[in-house]
């Protein structure tokens, strides 16, 4: 057993920090776009839009059934081809691993968020729809002002938990050789041979950030439970 030397981490910090920033921005983008897309996917299923609803259901089931790494490989392979078709040239458009990772996580997370929102939509009390109808609110206003705000509120602990899992999952971009927090640590570890310190440090960073966020979820959940009890 060799003695540990964490000063190596301090030297490597700027590089690790840029890796962490990459992880965080990937998480933020996947959260923002995934939520927007996921809400759309959920609404398509909720309204049973003909033809589209079946496709969306298939997409969500497929994405949820296969490993994220395989999805990453698929997108890495498919996105340039699809973009080539869209651009009309027919030739693959190389967009690089970073763009692929962003697109993959946004579309992948959309499937997971859409499941949460879809179920949240079903959980909204029928009386809310009736009261909106009785007030002559349009379908758009009903969903925009009455239904969706309640869905987001009720589902917020679950959405946040899902986002914590998303944050952890961004480490899988390692397989695309990207420099996220883990990627940065791994590249440094190969240079300086300090695997142990590097990986332990990465584990601690993830642990600290995820636990802190989990505490927020617990607080949210408690607050929601209290609000529900008051009702």
């Amino acid at each position, binding site marked *: 057993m060799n003695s540990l030397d964490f000063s190596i981490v301090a030297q490597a910090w700027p590089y690790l920090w840029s890796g962490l920033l990459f992880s965080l921005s990937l998480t933020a983008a996947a959260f923002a776009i995934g939520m927007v897309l996921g809400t759309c996917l959920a609404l398509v299923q909720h309204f049973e839009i003909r033809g589209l609803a079946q496709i969306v259901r298939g997409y969500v089931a497929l994405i949820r059934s296969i490993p994220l790494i395989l999805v990453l490989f698929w997108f890495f392979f498919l996105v340039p081809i699809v973009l080539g078709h869209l651009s009309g040239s027919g030739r693959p458009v190389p967009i690089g691993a970073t763009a692929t990772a962003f697109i993959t996580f946004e579309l992948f997370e959309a499937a997971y968020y859409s499941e949460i929102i879809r179920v949240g939509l079903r959980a909204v009390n029928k009386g809310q729809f009736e009261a909106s109808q009785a007030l002559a609110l349009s379908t758009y206003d009903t969903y925009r002002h009455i239904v969706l705000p*309640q869905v987001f509120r009720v589902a917020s602990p679950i959405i946040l938990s899902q986002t914590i899992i998303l944050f952890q999952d961004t480490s899988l971009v390692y397989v695309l050789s990207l420099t996220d927090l883990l990627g940065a640590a791994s590249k440094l570890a190969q240079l300086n041979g300090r695997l142990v310190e590097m990986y332990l440090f990465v584990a601690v960073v993830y642990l600290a950030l995820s636990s802190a966020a989990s505490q927020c979820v617990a607080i949210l959940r408690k607050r929601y439970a209290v609000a529900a009890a008051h009702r």
Partner: protein
Amino acid sequence: MPHQTISNSGQPAAIVVENVVKRYGAFAALNDINLEVGKGEKIVLCGPSGSGKSTLIRCINHIERHDGGRIVVDGVELTGRIADINSVRCEVGMVFQSFNLFPHLTVAENCMLAPMKVRGISRSEARDRALSLLRKVRIQDQADKYPAQLSGGQQQRVAIARALCMQPKIMLFDEPTSALDPEMVKEVLETMVGLARDGMTMVCVTHEMGFAREVADRVVFMDRGSIVEEAAPETFFQAPRTERARSFLNQIIH
């Protein structure tokens, strides 16, 4: 085509229900219902549970769709047309048994949303209107609280104010006091009596016989999807004509 029906009193009727049928599968919830409500008239609908009274008033503002017959509200026939339905719903306020307040909006916001989005009035005007109607139901000091912070009786009064904010010509009440604790029933009934005094056209599904005696012009008794008896409250309570009405009255008074 606007359709005008002249009621007995000579005024155009607020609500006309003609031969209305509503089925759930093989079960007929409403079976050939005919009812006319004049402007300013107060009707109390009563009957055992499952008699179709709630279904009837839910059909009047098209929360449930009737399967046959005609419903004309304030001169507009309820067909499937969205424009007709919405114009009727603007004129008809509804109060539900379970309040159905929007839990994520404050009391004032509950009252402001529909006037702003449907009537298109400004936020400040909507707030003024909301506060004045909240004052009317004597709850103006709770305007910025959330529904879950209020008692059941207060919530139901907010629901009444919310409906009034649309300045409806007709108010429908679907068992407004049956989800309330006994001590809160009175405050809601008082609000409804006040509304009746102001001349509002009202159709109330309720078992509060004191309320019926005090404000109703007519009591309509329903059973198994049909109107069995219609009479002035005094006549209905003292000398019900049908056996079914008698046994119903015995059960609720006991």
